[in-house]
């Protein structure tokens, strides 16, 4: 008997569900060996990693607070990825969204207006879209590579933010710290409940999950751009325009990343500083792929990755584990998860000989 790897004629639905479970089992086996070899008790380590962070309301609040921007950005990126538009500059679009929103929050004349927050959401969205429009325009007109342009624009955005908070927008009463003044209370999201940091912006993410799910499942527009992504020659054959894919793919990512940036300044941060994102724009790329570019998958993927990061922080503090150990563990888990995906599209069959 020897094994043969065959492509499935139709992707297996049973395996689609079972793959994450298989990956979990493999991770548990791996972590027992790995943590045990390092002299940690595997059971208590896993407990500290995945259970402890969620066993308090504050822990759950932090979990959702981190998951929300990851999910939101990944939803936008997935629309582009389906169309083979590789926007990896969501981090820059997030920064521009935050900058645009802050400009409204700081300089809008009526600091108590009820329109302040909606205007900031709009500004954040437009800021992110404007930043994504640059690679879209260049790709449409000059056929530039959007991977390079979006990535490089992220550095430009970082420097632009740095210039603003060190220069013209620096809080005159901020003891020379490179940060803006705090946003007025009307420019901030209310907390979801009580003293916890997670705020009403999670409703935007939930809404976006629903809209994206509906859009990708039922709209003809999404169908057309996914054809362009999967088979560009077939799209040309059918007469679908490539420019639609380019613009929609980049604008969706820019808009969502911009809103995520806005929600950071109008939420946990309350002001601009040189480092407003711990790399949400890049991590969201992983979230989009773990979620298989599907809205519900991205929701779960975002919650999962968020827990993985929070758990990693928690064991560093509670068990004194080094950050490299937690990163190896995180990497192994992602590896098992993506490897299990292979079985959705392929199967292994044993034959004689």
């Amino acid at each position: 008997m020897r094994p043969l790897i065959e492509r499935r004629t139709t992707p297996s639905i049973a395996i689609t569900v079972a793959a994450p479970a298989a990956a979990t089992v493999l991770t548990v086996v791996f972590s027992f060996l790995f943590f045990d070899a390092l002299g940690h008790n595997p059971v208590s380590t896993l407990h500290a990693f995945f259970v402890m962070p969620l066993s308090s309301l504050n822990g759950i609040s932090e979990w959702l607070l981190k998951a929300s921007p990851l999910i939101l950005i990944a939803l936008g990126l997935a629309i582009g990825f389906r169309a083979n538009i590789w926007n990896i500059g969501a981090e820059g679009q997030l920064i521009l969204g935050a900058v645009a929103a802050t400009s409204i929050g700081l300089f809008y004349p009526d600091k108590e207006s009820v329109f302040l927050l909606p205007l900031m959401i709009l500004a954040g969205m437009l800021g992110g879209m404007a930043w994504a429009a640059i690679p879209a325009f260049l790709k449409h007109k000059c056929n530039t590579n959007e991977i390079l342009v979006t990535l490089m624009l992220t550095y430009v955005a970082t420097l632009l933010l740095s210039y603003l908070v060190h220069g013209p927008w620096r809080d005159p009463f901020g003891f020379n710290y490179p940060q803006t003044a705090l946003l007025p209370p009307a420019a901030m999201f209310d907390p979801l409940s009580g003293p916890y940091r997670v705020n009403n912006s999670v409703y935007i993410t939930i809404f976006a999950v629903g809209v994206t799910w509906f859009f990708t499942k039922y709209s003809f527009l999404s169908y057309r751009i996914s054809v362009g992504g999967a088979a560009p020659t077939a799209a040309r054959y059918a007469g679908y325009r490539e420019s639609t894919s380019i613009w929609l793919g980049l604008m969706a990512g820019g808009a969502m990343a911009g809103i995520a940036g806005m929600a950071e300044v109008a939420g946990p941060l309350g002001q601009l500083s040189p480092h407003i994102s711990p790399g949400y724009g890049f991590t969201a790329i992983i979230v989009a792929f773990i979620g298989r570019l599907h809205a519900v998958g991205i929701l779960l993927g975002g919650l999962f990755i968020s827990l993985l990061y929070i758990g990693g922080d928690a064991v560093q503090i509670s068990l004194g584990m080094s950050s490299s150990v937690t990163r190896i563990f995180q990497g192994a888990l992602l590896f098992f998860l993506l490897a299990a995906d292979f079985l959705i599209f392929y199967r292994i069959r044993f034959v004689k000989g």
Partner: protein
Amino acid sequence: MTPRLELQNISKRYPSVQANDGISLQVMPGEVHAILGENGAGKSTLMKIIYGIVRADEGEIFCNGQPIGVHKPTLSRKLGIEMVHQHFALFESVTVAENIAISFGGKYDIVKLSQQVSEVSERYGLPVNPRSLVHHLSVGERQRVEIVRCLLQNPKVLILDEPTSVLTPQAVSRLFETLRLLAAEGCSILYISHKLYEVKELCDTATVLRDGRVTGTISPKKTSTAEIAQLMVGTDLPQTVKKASKISDEHALVIRNVTTSSEDQFGASLNDISLSVRRGEIVGIAGVSGNGQAELERLISGETTLNDAESIQLFEQPIAHLDAGKRRDLGLAFIPVERLGRGAVPSHRLNENAVLTAYRLNMVENGLLKMNRANRFTEKVIKKFGVKANGLESVASSLSGGNLQKYIVGREIEQNPKFLLVAQPTWGLDVGAAAFVRQTLVNLCNSGTAVLVISEELDELFEICDRLLVLYQGRLSQSFQCNETSLEEIGILMAGATAVGSDNTRTSVHASSD
């Protein structure tokens, strides 16, 4: 005498199909042995197993009585088994001799090799210039390069996979002479084909395959065509019924003096193309691929657009500036040669692929997909056109080439186009399916549709077309009424001779020296 090559109970299974099922055959030294069968019968898989590209699940191969264990193409070469592939793998930008040197690997002496190429090509009547750059060569010449490459290895067994599909009738008879000479020298030849008349002319023995099984081992010269077809298809062969067509005066498609330059370095450019197709008429464009066929297809389908809107007209509307989608809105449909990736999205399911072009049949409402309508349409196409698939949710790439072609043909025809452009309608289809597609095209035309067929298969064009033109090096010949011209006349034009005489009367022809 020990057989040169012997197969015993070869089986190979793919996910959705048993490609080979217990196949046994023997080939003697100097024998020309045909592997005959419809598309999807398992011919190509069997040849790949013999050559060592694909490994059989079960069964054994013997070469000169010795069993072959773990099989690989490199081992084939050591044993003297050579294969001329259906699609040539040549580097366009280097010379013939360099291409051959690359395929041999290792160190080489290009001057000596060129000399050997010349010798072999002279000896076997295969004119090839070792110093020509491959992109200058016609498809027929490229095939000769492949054959010469094989012959330089002194093969004991030569496998040819559908070698005549790209050749003019004249080139076919020249190829047959070469093969007969080779066989006389003791080389065994495995000749894969679905063309009965060729096999009858050339081969000593034929193994007929159907659905992966051997249905008969026959002597083709002594067996009647009907009998062989029966073995291949399982039923009697249908004939295309063509009524005297009612051609209207209404022009469906008119192209006026279009000249284009090719974007692709190795592509052809079109030179002063003028063409018209009327409703109820089937017009054929004969010619060997690479003479501007791909460019002409894109020009008509709308995958290429022109600034001068008037230069192409569809039902008297200027369309040259419109993209493919807008032309389809006006009643155009198009069946391309490339099924996977162009005619269908490989990773999409069949019902999703229905939406690709047939969404105009109410499959989209207010910007939203109506998949239940797409499903009904897909079911209809699968049933009516006999598509073998694992349901309407199988992904396009899981279908065999022939079945996907049937699906695309069905999808385009079921949209009731007013003008249909078809490229190689039966390329890779089995005898039964090809007959069905041809009949469908004829019926469509009888119902008033204008049909333009671009094909390399002359027999097919003569069978269904009212008029024929030849595309050679980007130029269209004058138009011939099918019943007033002959296979030979068109064949010579395909090979590059020019017809003399400008009227639509019979023309005298200068044969080219080629």
